């Protein structure tokens, strides 16, 4: 019986399998890719159908803000990776700093996104507006997709901010330590995915003209 009692204590919560945890995370990221995959598929179909109108609509987006946001996200991917490495090497302080910078970048990204979207809206470019309905079909779809895809991506950035903040608190409270940091690593993986999706969104909307 004593064996059984011990095992009960180790049931569920203490049971630890870092490889398993990462595998679960990769599978989850895979589903995220497929979620966005549906959108990329739709984008491909309509780009093929209305190549010229997509071309003209794309010229109306602000490449400068897009580029700044790309740099921000890429750098934040670096800082989250640095945060993991720092904690692995036992440097809790540096890890906290790097994670805080990552969250700061994420917020910065969302602020930029806010200004970008509100500029578009103030020009009357949003789904259902009169300005939009006067445009050609391809342009309507381009902007529709622009809002849906960058919006869905923005939602993931917001979720990332919340997630990384939780992780930050856990590191500060020593719930995540150098020998047990799979939660931090998995959150880092999620953040890289958010970055990766942006890497595809950026050229598709801002650059291919």
């Amino acid at each position, binding site marked *: *019986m004593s*064996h*059984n009692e011990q*095992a*009960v204590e180790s*049931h*569920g*919560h203490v*049971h630890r*399998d870092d*490889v*398993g*945890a990462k*595998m*679960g995370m990769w*599978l*989850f990221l*895979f*589903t*995220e890719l*497929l*979620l*966005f*995959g*549906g*959108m990329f*598929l*739709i984008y491909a*179909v*309509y780009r093929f*159908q*209305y190549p010229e109108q997509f071309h003209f609509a794309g010229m109306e987006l602000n490449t400068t803000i897009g580029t700044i946001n790309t740099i921000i996200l890429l750098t934040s991917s670096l800082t989250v990776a640095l945060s993991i490495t720092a904690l692995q090497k036992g440097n809790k302080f540096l890890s906290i700093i790097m994670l805080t910078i990552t969250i700061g970048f994420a917020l910065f990204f969302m602020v930029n996104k806010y200004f970008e979207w509100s500029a578009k809206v103030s020009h009357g470019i*949003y*789904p*259902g507006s009169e300005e939009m*309905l006067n445009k*050609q*079909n*391809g342009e*309507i*779809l381009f902007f*529709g*997709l622009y*809002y*849906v895809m960058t919006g*869905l991506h923005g939602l993931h950035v917001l979720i990332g901010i919340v997630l990384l903040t939780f992780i930050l608190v856990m590191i500060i409270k020593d719930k995540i330590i150098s020998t047990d940091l799979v939660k931090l690593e998995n959150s880092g993986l999620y953040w890289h995915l958010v970055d990766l999706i942006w890497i595809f969104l950026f050229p598709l909307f801002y650059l291919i003209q």
Partner: protein
Amino acid sequence: MANGTIAANLKTFYEEGTTKSNKGIWSWLLSTDHKRIGLMYLGAIAIFFSVAAILGVLMRLELIAPGETIMEAQTYNSIFTLHGVIMIFLFIIPGLPAVFGNFFLPLQIGAMDVAFPRLNLLSFWIYIVGAILVLVSLILPGGPIDTGWTFYIPYSVRSGTNISLAIFAAFVLGFSSILTGLNFVTTIHRMRAPGMGWFKMPLFVWATYATAWIQIIATPVIGITILLVILERMFGVGIFDPALGGDPILFQHLFWIYSHPAVYIMILPAMGVVSEIIPTFARRTIFGYRAIAMSSLAIAFVGYLVWAHHMFTSGMSDTARIIFSLLTFIVALPSGVKVFNWVATMYKGSIDPKPPFLWVMSFIVLFSIGGLTGLVLGALATDIHLHDTYFVVAHFHYVMFGGTGTIFFAALYYWFPKMFGRMYNIKVANWGVGLFFVAFNLLYFPKFIMGYLGMPRRYYDYLQEFSSWHLISTVGSWVMLIALILVIGNIVYSIFKGEKCSSNPWGGVTLEWHTQSPPPLLNFQEIPTVKHEPYDFSQLEEMKNES
């Protein structure tokens, strides 16, 4: 200890939980024990199945004669939609994986629990939230949805009923399904008992593995599609609206990219259960173990590439139609491989026709009819004639209800003694299967004939010439109701009043039969080491000596 010992002195998982208090409702609702979660799913699913079955009986009653019988056309539209939505999203997709996958997957691979027990509990709660959203969408002003379970554009954007909420519920349920899927894949990769190589896994585990992959791969696509429909309703983005340049057919493609693989989410675990039951009651190792295991993966893979056979009349190029038709025929091959291997397993076996085995026999007949009529629909020329008729309804019910539904009962009757440590009334159970089989054919076979004669599906009213077939079908629905009451009542009664039974009443040899009934919290007294092939009945003697 090589095969796990049957020790009667351990507390069962009913007596000992993962929460601080072992009693009361919270020790269930907050339990991370896969067995309790499986039983909670069973309870929820049983309720939803009963509700949807009653809706089905009401539909049949309306159709007993032409014209209005008991309800108005709008009510009828809502009822057939709800019947479909509840049966598909709340019963048949989660049914086998969530109930029996949860309960028996860890037992069959000799693990203490799934890889992520807390995530497992979260999946259950997300499922309940989704179910509540469905129910809320019924009572809010606007009224219950009336689009059919397929939510086709443009009607799902134009209809004034509570579409957004109801399909958001489907999104939430999909999320639950994804989490269960990734939990199972990780569990199978990481938690197998020592000695259990990939080709020593029971076939139910293989089937669950293939299913879990489909859940992971296909479900996100319906997620994004549903979000787009909601956005379309809220903002009029135009992605599916031809007036703004969008394409409604694109919705159909995206919908079926999920929903066709989803039918394999429904049927694959059922095929896994069949591969468990037949060897146990034929006392013979499974014929073609590897072929059956691999055909599960083949179905999962090819099943992903056949979605457009739902759209032969929607407008596609001939090349696309021919390719999708061909692929549809190909997916029938691995299904055929399974059926032939099951039949070959029984050949020269020492067959013991207990209720679970009878359910499986009824499955093989019903599923074969369903599968072969699927080929009729998969062929281009015949599909043009039969598309959107009762033939499709009949085919679908033969594969889903006759296939997965029947096996849901088979699994329940097979594993009942393990889950509850009691036995049901065998005689009543035999009558239940028999009556179910008769009722099923009475209820659904006339639909093949009506469909062939041109009766369109989902219609509220019909021509006089179809009325006798509709009458037979409606009478069948009453017999079916009696059969279901018999089948489910026997189980419910036996949970409380059934006779206590031994830990291995059928003489099964997979790992779940090596532990006591009901199993202890951690499933085994000691994690077993696997030395035998999964269906090697020579170990039965050893197992007897152990107890």
